[in-house]
């Protein structure tokens, strides 16, 4: 207790040094006075008594020191002094200090902002109890590793898994898609998840209001249609979570009662607002083993590892393969942690980004260290004087480190402020398909990260000047008056070394940025097979897929209604606008497959379109005809295929007139009536796949959700209101959502664009910093050598001789930096591998470009100060000496 009390008091005294001094002064004065009185009483004269008292007492200052040691913590006091000294030093050259803080704050801010994103997406656990036990179950089938149905599962398989697997507490399967939701008389699009019974049990969360589904409600023929919504949806439509319970919304033309509201941070699958039981009352069908239409999640039983679950599932998949060879041959099951599955490819991109900003910070620190080193040389005199006055070497080094830390802490604080803005910008720039963006925030971990990098950066910064200060030789420093290069060759070497580091690091970043930009340009240049400019896309879902209801003819009537609107060049409607493929299946030519053959067909993309779609999208009709009034319900089934399918299916023959069967919604043969050009269905990076288009009036179920595509003469969005009005006249309950084809295709290259933009920008910053470093070293060399240059000019040296003299080392420096940088780039850009498109890692254009860019900018940076040196007036230069 007493020691705690003393510790606190000492700490308080350390924070308010000098507070106790007046009292101590008074006490010591009284003490000496009393001594004097005594001596006088013993017969000394007042003068002698004063001297005797002083002698008897001992050193007053020494006593004060000992008192200070005892009452507070001396090291705190020392550091306070160092800090005060550092602040004074900064005040003396405020410009220098401000530039330093600004550069470092930018570096720290960029790192903090990127780390806050990495933290939210990669490091923070998912907001569910024991999130590490939540896994996804996916199937892998040869040929389906990519594309829209990658990893999807068959519901019949799932039922077998659930019956046989022992590693799971709960398993569920589901699918999610944007559909029309009617609340009151308002219709809107929302992402609806259709989930099986144990879905919410897998996540282990409790509803924020109401309850989860009852087993009764989730059966194939449920007692009542029910739904669960997010708090945001509940708030928006009903004014609160509790208020939403018992309210009714319409999904797929059926009223559903809201029975529960999810917790605020529950978001699975990403973006879902409404969850409903999987078994659609309207569409009760037996589980299906051939089609992969669902996704699955599970919660590992406590004590079961991912590996155990994986091997159990592998065994089950093997059994299913033996039981159902027709469908399950070659089908594997993969168990993946949900977090890993959600993060997916984003991980690599984020790490590349983090590495980039770390490099930028490193360059900034090196840059500042060069500046500080130059200044430390100028401060040699100051250091020598301090050393002469008794400051130990350790004390001087500590002083330099404290100066670095003061700067680092200021930069950290400013950087944090910048990071708030940077984080928002980053989140706005990051492509929308990156998960968990709404969780990005500055939390304790981010703050700790900022603190740590601030300290590391400070130390990096202070190290070189500290070493230099420690090696100051007293008499030399004093003799030279401190304004000239006392540090000598070693310091000059150190400075040049730091510039080499900056140049090589920026070469690495420039190379990475260059490769990504080249890759993005290559992506942009890929012919897509359609013309995305000036096309309005209006997504609409007709609530019932029942052909007997007039609502299914909504699209036909809408297309008829807008065909003569001024500004409309062509109009159509498609199930899978380019970039939005969501169905693939097998096809057969002139052959109706048996059940045992379902696995054997080659894969194609399925799409349902209205007449006029190809014209509207700018896809050329190569042979045959487009769909028209003949391709309606009850008419002979028809289809149009793309060139890739035509070429692969019947090489060297004309496919028109042949019959095609697609594993889509029916296996009735369709007569091919036309061949159209290929489009890149999943963005420019993916090759065109075989595609089969079917007329929308012959495929009611899949024709109920289409994007109306309208090619316009002017700005496509200007037609949106007209289309909305026409749609509302036809069917008030059909929500329509507008976008442009340009925006849709832009989403396909959003990630490459983001990478190229950001890393390119950081590379540019790195280049600027490196060039400033080159400039600084040259300017410094010139200022140091001015007298020498003066002598040379006086002796008749020409400007070009002076330039050559100055350039020699500098060019060597840049050459070494380039060489090291290229070596580093060759080693590190390999990490970009999978992020690049159509650009080799050794892309000569990039490397030559980087070298040329660096050489020209460095040359300018060298030339500016050097050319000043050639104009030195020898008289003035020599007078400086």
């Amino acid at each position: 207790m007493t020691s705690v009390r003393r510790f606190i008091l000492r700490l308080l005294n350390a924070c308010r040094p000098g507070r106790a001094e007046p009292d101590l002064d008074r006490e010591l004065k009284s003490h000496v006075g009393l001594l004097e009185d005594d001596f006088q009483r013993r017969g000394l004269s007042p003068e002698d008594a004063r001297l005797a008292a002083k002698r008897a007492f001992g050193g007053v200052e020494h006593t004060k020191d000992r008192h200070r040691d005892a009452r507070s913590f001396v090291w705190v006091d020392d550091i306070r002094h160092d800090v005060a000294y550092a602040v004074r030093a900064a005040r003396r050259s405020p410009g220098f200090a401000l530039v330093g803080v600004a550069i470092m704050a930018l570096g720290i801010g960029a790192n903090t902002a990127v780390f806050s994103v990495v933290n939210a997406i990669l490091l923070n656990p998912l907001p569910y109890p024991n999130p590490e036990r939540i896994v996804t179950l996916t199937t892998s089938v040869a040929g389906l590793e990519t594309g829209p149905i990658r990893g999807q599962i068959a519901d019949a398989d799932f039922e077998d898994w659930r019956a046989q697997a022992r590693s799971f507490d709960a398993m569920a399967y589901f699918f999610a898609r944007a559909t029309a939701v009617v609340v009151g008389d308002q219709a809107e699009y929302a992402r609806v998840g259709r989930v099986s019974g144990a879905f919410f049990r897998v996540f282990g969360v409790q509803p924020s209001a109401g309850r989860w589904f009852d087993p009764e409600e989730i059966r194939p023929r449920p007692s009542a249609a029910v739904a669960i919504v997010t708090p945001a949806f509940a708030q928006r439509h009903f004014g609160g979570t509790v208020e939403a319970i018992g309210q009714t919304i319409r999904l797929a033309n059926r009223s559903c009662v809201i029975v529960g509201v999810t917790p605020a941070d529950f978001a699975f699958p990403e973006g879902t607002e409404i969850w409903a039981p999987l078994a659609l009352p309207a569409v009760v069908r037996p589980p299906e083993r051939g089609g992969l239409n669902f996704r699955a999640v599970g919660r590992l039983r406590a004590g079961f590892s991912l590996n155990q679950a994986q091997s159990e599932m592998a065994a089950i998949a093997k059994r299913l393969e033996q039981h159902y060879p027709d469908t399950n041959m070659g089908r594997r099951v993969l168990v993946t942690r949900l977090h890993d599955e959600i993060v997916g490819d984003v991980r690599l991109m984020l790490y590349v980004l983090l590495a980039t900003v770390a490099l930028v910070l490193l360059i900034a620190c090196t840059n500042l260290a060069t500046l500080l080193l130059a200044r430390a040389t100028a401060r040699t005199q100051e250091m020598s004087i301090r050393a002469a006055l008794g400051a130990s070497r350790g004390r001087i080094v500590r002083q330099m480190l404290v100066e670095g830390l003061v700067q680092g802490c200021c930069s950290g604080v400013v950087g944090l402020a910048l990071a708030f803005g940077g984080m928002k910008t980053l989140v706005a720039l990051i492509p929308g398909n990156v998960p968990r963006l709404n969780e990005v925030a500055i939390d304790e971990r981010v703050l700790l990260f900022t603190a740590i990098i601030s300290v590391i950066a400070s130390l990096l910064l202070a190290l070189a000047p500290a070493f230099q200060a420690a090696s100051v030789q007293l008499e030399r420093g004093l003799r030279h008056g401190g304004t000239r290069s006392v540090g000598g060759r070693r310091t000059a070497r150190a400075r040049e070394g730091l510039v080499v580091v900056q140049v090589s690091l920026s070469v690495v970043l420039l190379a990475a940025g260059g490769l990504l930009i080249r890759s993005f340009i290559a992506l942009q240049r890929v012919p897509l097979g359609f013309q995305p400019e000036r096309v309005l896309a209006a997504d609409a879902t007709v609530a019932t897929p029942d052909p007997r209801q007039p609502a299914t003819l909504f699209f036909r009537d809408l297309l008829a209604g807008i065909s003569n609107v001024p500004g409309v060049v062509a109009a159509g409607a498609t199930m899978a606008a380019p970039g939005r493929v969501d169905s693939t299946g097998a096809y057969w030519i002139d052959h109706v497959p048996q059940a045992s053959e379902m696995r054997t067909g080659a894969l194609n993309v399925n799409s349902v379109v209205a007449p006029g779609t190809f014209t509207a999208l700018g896809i050329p009709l190569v042979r045959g005809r487009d769909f028209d009034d003949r391709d309606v319900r009850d008419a002979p089934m028809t289809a149009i295929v793309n060139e890739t399918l035509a070429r692969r299916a019947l090489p060297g023959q004309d496919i028109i007139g042949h019959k095609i069967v697609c594993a889509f919604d029916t296996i009735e043969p369709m007569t091919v009536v036309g061949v159209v050009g290929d489009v890149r269905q999943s963005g420019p990076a993916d090759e065109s796949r075989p595609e089969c288009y079917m007329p929308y009036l012959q495929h009611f179920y899949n024709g109920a959700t289409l994007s109306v595509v309208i090619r316009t003469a002017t700005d496509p969005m200007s037609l949106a209101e007209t289309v909305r009005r026409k749609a509302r006249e036809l069917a008030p309950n059909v929500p329509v959502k507008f976008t442009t084809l340009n925006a849709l295709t832009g989403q396909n290259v959003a990630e490459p664009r983001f990478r190229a933009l950001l890393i390119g920008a950081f590379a540019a910053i790195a280049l600027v910093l490196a060039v400033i470093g080159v400039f600084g070293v040259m300017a410094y060399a010139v200022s140091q050598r001015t007298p020498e240059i003066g002598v040379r000019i006086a002796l008749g040296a020409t400007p070009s001789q002076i330039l050559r003299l100055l350039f020699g080392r500098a060019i060597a420096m840049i050459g070494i930096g380039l060489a090291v940088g290229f070596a580093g780039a060759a080693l590190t850009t390999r990490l970009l591998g999978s992020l690049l498109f159509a650009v080799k890692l050794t892309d000569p254009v990039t490397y030559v470009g980087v070298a040329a860019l660096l050489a020209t900018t460095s040359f300018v940076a060298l030339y500016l100060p050097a050319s000043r040196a050639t104009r030195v007036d020898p008289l003035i230069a020599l007078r400086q000496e």
Partner: protein
Amino acid sequence: MISYVHLTTERIAAKLPFEKTTWMASGSKDRVELLQGTLDLIVLRALHTMGAQHAYALAARLEQVAEPSLRLNQGTLYPALVRLEQKGWIKGTWQRTESNREAKYYAITKAGVRGLEKQTERWRRLAGLVDKLLLNEG
């Protein structure tokens, strides 16, 4: 047996709440060094027996008691005083002396009395142990 004693000694020494202080007789070859912490104990004890005192009186008293083996540098009292005050064992107040000079008078507090008892007890045990050890070794 020895090692047990040794351990005990260490433990007691570690429990002594005093700082490292060495109080030297100034200018004497035959100097006596005070063991760490003993000055605090001596000051506490002096204040306990004599009542409130200012630093000069304390120093004079200690000189008087220790004479002639211990000539004090009077300033060395101050760290001990501030340590004890921070622990709450003594309290200083400004008062007037008989000669009408102002001086800070230190008085032992209740906590100080308790501390003195405890420390005296510990000191005795420590001293006894050291004595015993020295005798055994001798």
